[in-house]
């Protein structure tokens, strides 16, 4: 039960949140410009970083805002939560 510091609501239990994937896994700007192989790589090869990564989390049981969390997947260490564009 990790303790996520929501920039809006403060520290909350993990079960108030929904995980939303790796921040580095961005949707391509122009999907039509990609080959089938490149597109399938985006859809099906999802990052699963060992160590520190930036992650999207949705604070479903709170402000219902998407936030960014730095998490170390090895030991669940968390770092301060960044505010994203449009979030401040």
């Amino acid at each position, binding site marked *: 039960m990790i303790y996520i510091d929501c920039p809006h*609501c403060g520290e*909350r239990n993990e079960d108030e949140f929904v995980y939303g994937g790796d921040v580095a896994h961005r949707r391509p700007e122009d999907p039509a410009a990609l080959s089938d192989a490149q597109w399938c790589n985006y859809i099906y090869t999802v990052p699963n970083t060992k160590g520190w990564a930036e992650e999207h989390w949705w604070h479903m049981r*709170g402000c219902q805002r998407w936030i960014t969390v730095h998490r170390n997947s090895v030991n669940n260490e968390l770092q301060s939560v960044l505010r994203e564009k449009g979030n401040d």
Partner: protein
Amino acid sequence: MAGYDATVKILPHSGFLDLRGNAVVRQICSDVLGLSLPAAANQLKTATDGRIVYCISNDHWILQIVDGRQNDVLRTLEQAAVGLSHSFVDVSDMYIQIRLSGPESQEVLSQAVSIDIHPRVFPPGATARAGFAETTAQLHCVDDAPTFIVTVYSSYRQYAIDLLNTAIGAA
């Protein structure tokens, strides 16, 4: 005698408006309402006429109106915000409110809520939107009885009452 020393009561229907917008919209709403919208989550402002505005996040507020005039207020706000990016939605039927009060109401609420509601950090006047068992609630401590106002989605009304009564443990 089994059961915690606390009571549960459904409060009469209130009007609610869901307000979204940036700092400019916040200022306009504050001016129109004569009630300043807090800048950050976990804060609220109460007006002398019973209106309360809860801040959900830095662009999101819930305005509670107790005199039934939410439609008028909504119209006035819309007129004031013309041309600005915003969303004002009547959500009067989205929420119902339950009053949990009594010397052991913190022990009762702590069975459903994982945030810290100890009087040191959640004294009268404190508010938070947080997980409430399997749903979400806006929590508001109103006095040091202590009394908590628990605002939940209206379809969860009976669930929330059953849950709190189970937590109290009264037969």
